[in-house]
């Protein structure tokens, strides 16, 4: 069954057409500032599958209309299987630490641990996160944000915003906006941790808001 899955996902291509590719089709009235690629981490169903086999680019889009078309056609957050991840990254950036655009950066993140409480609203919160990223209101003009990630785990839903750098001055706006987007209370803290620090066990977050 895993071979079939692999074959099917290989067929998924990145060359979806937008208004930029096909000027005759004016279905896209609202072009986005950046082109975005939706990625998906498939839970491992076979021990032979490694990380690269599991991380799949699904589709790339560049307009608001396309975003909605895609969003309406894919499973909502609370319908994804455990150990799945959605990643929405600027085109050309892989959602991996090793990617040159990510290697010097880190992530703002928050974990919703009370899944039974958050389950009815996680879809809306994730949507708000996506809109803030594609609309680029998650930051001012810092151009720090590379993408947004949703992890579906047994104990928690975790939302993270990946950044290019780790400079405090550039990051605080993003952290504060993420907190608003996720409708967190004051006592619910978002944390920023660099990718380098994430690799070291027990390392403390760089910023807590």
């Amino acid at each position, binding site marked *: 069954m895993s071979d079939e899955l692999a074959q099917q996902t290989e067929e*998924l291509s990145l060359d979806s057409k937008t208004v930029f590719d096909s000027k005759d089709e004016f279905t896209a009235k609202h072009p986005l500032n950046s082109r975005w690629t939706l990625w998906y981490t498939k839970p491992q169903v076979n021990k032979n599958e490694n990380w690269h086999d599991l991380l799949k680019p699904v589709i790339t889009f560049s307009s*608001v209309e396309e975003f909605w078309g895609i969003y309406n056609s894919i499973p909502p957050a609370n319908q994804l299987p455990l150990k799945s991840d959605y990643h929405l990254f600027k085109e050309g950036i892989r959602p991996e630490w090793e990617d040159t655009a990510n290697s010097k950066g880190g992530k703002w993140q928050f974990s919703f641990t009370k899944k039974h409480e958050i389950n009815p609203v996680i879809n809306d919160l994730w949507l708000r996160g996506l809109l803030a990223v594609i*609309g680029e209101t998650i930051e001012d003009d810092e151009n720090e944000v590379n993408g947004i990630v949703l992890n579906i785990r047994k104990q928690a839903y975790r939302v993270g915003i990946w950044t290019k750098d780790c400079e405090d001055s550039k990051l605080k706006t993003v952290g504060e906006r993420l907190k608003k987007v996720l409708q967190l209370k004051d006592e619910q803290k978002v944390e920023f941790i660099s990718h380098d620090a994430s690799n070291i066990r027990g390392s403390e977050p760089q910023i807590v808001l």
Partner: protein
Amino acid sequence: MVKYTEEQLLEAREEAYVPSPQILEAFNQMIDQVKEHAAAEYEKHKALKWSNGDTYIDEHGHERSYHHMNRRRASRTGGSKPNLRKKSEVDQDGWETLSKPKKSFGAEEGVEERNKFRETIKARPNNKNLGSSKPVDHREIIADKPVKAFNAFAALEDDDDDEE
């Protein structure tokens, strides 16, 4: 830089356009297959937990494990145990006797004879029956002998006696 607020983006929701329906269809199929696999794994795991695979079909056609035949004996600690200890007795002077009950049959018979016999026997350590085969150190035996130690209070009393 083009920016869209959440409200602006939501307004355009009705104008949704699916760029490559076949890609998204394949994606949904993949997720369905992952879910099916996860559900099958869950059932397998549940079945493994329920039995070790060694089962039989009962008279109603249901698969059952042999757990009931291999079950541990139920604990008896739940019930209250009778207290077999002899109750303590308090004598006229207020002393409480906590002696254990004699367990051997006829233990109270011939107690005097037994005590006399015990007095006549001098117990000697038998090296063969000790844990160590090392011979008993005689110096230790000597060290155990009661020694008349100097007692200051006794000495004072003696002095008083002398004065009298």
